[in-house]
């Protein structure tokens, strides 16, 4: 008798807490798998020169925690320069797509004009042209324009995002008609309507697009690799890639450099996390 009672109690206990315990166990395991490479890199970057990096068993917590590698990287390697270059490229890599997409999406959403449908279909059609296919002609065009070895060359191929136009159009479509009608009555011109009335209303979508562009340009590797020869112009991704080849022996420096490259991404990610779910959902419309 007691047995059945206990059995039943165990069952309700399991119903109540069992799935929770299993869920947490799985979640912790999965999160560990996701962050172990980062932890290992962080740990390597904090290990002193006299401490072995690869030991069996691996040591995740350095014996003598030191920031020497970061200081050394900052002083002896061009990491601050690369960081500055990355910031410049990322600034334009965010500004241009957000600006040009917001410009182009406005008439597509709010104006009646001849050829609107055609232009919209054209814009959507470019979404299926992957850069991996077109990188050769793009390179040749940049060459013709004399933009090899310049930041303009790195920035321009991604200066407008078709997906961005699509996103911004969705946002503009949701604004009620009356708003611009009353603005017209008040004597606002088209530019003012766009800048002062429309843009403030689509700010969340602009933020979403800005984040997508930030991640894309901070991580941009293909165009810097193809276009930039002068090592003084390298952004952090390309710089790390080249340094990794040269400094095979000093992994602590490379680890410190990698962590430095991760910090801006982490800051943006943590401070703007509520937008990230949206970015993923909205990019799922993309197909």
């Amino acid at each position: 008798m007691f047995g059945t009672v206990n059995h039943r109690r165990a069952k309700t206990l399991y119903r109540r807490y069992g799935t929770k315990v299993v869920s947490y166990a799985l979640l912790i395991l999965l999160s560990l798998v996701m962050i172990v490479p980062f932890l290992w890199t962080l740990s390597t970057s904090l290990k002193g020169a006299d401490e072995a990096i690869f030991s069996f068993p691996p040591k995740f917590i350095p014996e003598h925690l030191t920031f020497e590698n970061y200081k050394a990287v900052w002083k002896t390697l061009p990491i601050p320069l690369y960081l500055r270059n990355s910031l410049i490229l990322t600034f334009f890599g965010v500004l241009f797509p957000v600006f040009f997409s917001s410009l182009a999406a406005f008439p597509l959403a709010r104006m009646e004009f001849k050829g609107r449908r055609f232009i919209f279909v054209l814009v959507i059609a470019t979404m299926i042209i992957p850069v991996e296919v077109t990188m050769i002609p793009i390179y040749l065009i940049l060459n013709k324009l004399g933009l090899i070895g310049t930041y303009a060359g790195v920035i321009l191929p991604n200066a407008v995002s078709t997906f961005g136009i699509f996103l911004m159009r969705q946002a503009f479509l949701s604004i009620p008609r009356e708003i611009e009608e009353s603005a017209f009555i008040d004597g606002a011109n088209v530019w003012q309507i766009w800048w002062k009335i429309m843009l403030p209303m689509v700010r969340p979508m602009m933020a979403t697009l800005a984040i997508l562009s930030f991640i894309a340009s901070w991580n941009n590797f293909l165009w810097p690799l193809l276009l930039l020869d002068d090592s003084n112009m390298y952004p952090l991704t390309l710089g790390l890639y080249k340094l990794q080849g040269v400094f095979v022996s000093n992994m602590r420096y490379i680890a410190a450099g990698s962590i430095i490259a991760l910090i801006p991404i982490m800051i943006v990610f943590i401070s703007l996390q509520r937008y990230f779910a949206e970015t993923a959902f909205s990019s799922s419309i993309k197909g």
Partner: protein
Amino acid sequence: MYKSYHAWFFLLPALVLLLVFNFIPAIWVILLSFMEYNVIQPMEWVGLANYIRLANDAEFWNALKNTLYYWFLVTPALVIIPIFVAVLVNQKLVGIKFFRLTIYFPFLVSVVVTAIMWGWMLRSDGVINYALSLLNLEPVSWLTKKSTAMPSLAMITIWQGIGYYMLIYLGGLQAIPNELYESAELDGAGFLRKQWHITFPMLRPVIFFVAVVSTMAAFKEFTLMLVMTEGGPLGATQTVVYLIFEKAFRSLDMGYASAIATVLFVIILALTILNRRFLDRETS
């Protein structure tokens, strides 16, 4: 209110950029595939020569085979695993947001940093081999052995992609009306039965979407191969796009590289049309 020149004024910058960096290149790459061009000498029309060369090029077939192998390793895993992860993180648990963010974060990391981190993890004296040694398994030199190089890269891609597809599935899960689960519960369905009879059928369009997106991503991948293995060992991780990159920018064989790119273009277009067809059928 609006005049049509207003529209064109707003559209102009984007249209010029799209024209120069999307449309013209898309047409030019096809034209270029019928030419021989090494940047120094002028272009020369060679007809189908590049395609004939392609059909007989063992390197191309090897790259295509490798791409299919990579796709085979990556896409099923990225279609299936994130469903379970999404179900897991769709529960109302304390701290669930933290777990979602942690699982998603690897997706945001640049290919260079990913390559650096995983290069160390996969070294013969690295963390992965230590974990294996705990199970009494021999260490493997993951990236320098022909049989393990591509699976290692696939594993990294899966690690990086799980969180992204998890979020897409999560959106799909949250669109499923709760009443379906509630009525199933009244009928006495347990956790697993509910997933099998409600979650999977309701997620079908999302599953298809993820399959297409991850397939296209797999066909386009090459930076991971470039920074981790340089296509090696012995061409084992040389993918189609890697070959395009190598032929175009290392051998300056622009015409031939464009022929490979055109073939890839056709594959991508076919996948896109397939996707559209399916979506139209689902929505009608």
